């Protein structure tokens, strides 16, 4: 449900960076998403098609790359990739775990078009 706010933020960041670089058009947008980020790709895409109209991002394709979540065991210090959100440490069975990665959500890069002769 909060995908609209998130999509507006993606549009703002992409257009701001592209304008600074002197671009005329944005063609692709690459987004990194931790496995535990509660963002629905399809929903972002749905809003994107509507709100990017009439901006330099119109028609740009969104690419989502999901990255795995990682946990650290507070008992045996083992670090491991999370398979199941509520599974214990695979080494010692402890449930005393800390999340070290998995809630990332950032705009990694954009692909832009520039007219020849313009410099960034």
């Amino acid at each position, binding site marked *: 449900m*909060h995908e609209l706010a998130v999509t507006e933020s993606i549009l703002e960041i*992409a257009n701001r960076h592209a304008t600074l670089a002197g*671009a005329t058009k944005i063609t692709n947008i690459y987004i990194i998403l931790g496995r535990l980020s*509660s963002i629905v790709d399809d929903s972002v895409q749905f809003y994107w098609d509507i709100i990017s109209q009439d901006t330099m991002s119109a028609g740009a394709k969104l690419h989502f790359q999901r990255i795995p979540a990682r946990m650290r065991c507070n008992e045996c210090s083992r670090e491991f990739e999370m398979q199941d959100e509520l599974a214990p440490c695979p080494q010692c069975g402890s449930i005393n*775990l800390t999340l070290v990665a998995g809630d990332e959500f950032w*705009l990694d890069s954009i692909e*832009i078009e520039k007219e020849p002769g313009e410099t960034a």
Partner: protein
Amino acid sequence: MTVNRLPVVEKILSANDAVAGLNRKRLDQLKVFSINLMASPGAGKTSLILQTIKILSGRLNLGVIEGDTAPVTIDADRVTDAGMPAVQINTGGDCHLDAPMIDMGLNQLPLEKMDFLIVENVGNLVCPAAFKLGTHANVLVASIPEGDDKPYKYPAIYRGLDVLIINKIDLLPYVRFNMDYFRQGVEMLNPGLTTFAVSCTTGEGIDAWANWLINRAEELKGK
């Protein structure tokens, strides 16, 4: 025409996080200890606020920001009736409060006269977890009738908590709720989480929660 790839590497919610940082700075400077109170609809957020006001009134001053999706002032009216300042924020259908909404709310509260701020988030166990507000602590009210499986079904919100309040414990004899199963789920997501079991109806356990609040506010004032 040339095509090139431009690195951006910017957090998508960075604009919200920046405003949250400013909110925190303001609350720190004025030494107002603030909590982001989250829960599903009907868990007892407003009841907990009213109970907290009852215990603290005459000793400490509290202000409340109430978030709701519909243009109603039911919750703010209840707080105002209890003698504390409240601001109602209508999110216009949005499922959560965000940092700019808190900034607007702070502008309308007598912060200089306040010791505490309680932000009552929109009743929802999913979206509020994703938006930082700038408050000092994330507090969740879970209630017995919701069932003992909620940590397992809404892990993200439990993972980000500083305090958990289990409300409506007076209903334990009447409802199927396995406290051990519930607590084990919480422990897996947030080891050692500070937890208070309360009943806003009987008043049981509210003292311990209020003491925690008072201690944290004193800590902030001592800084």
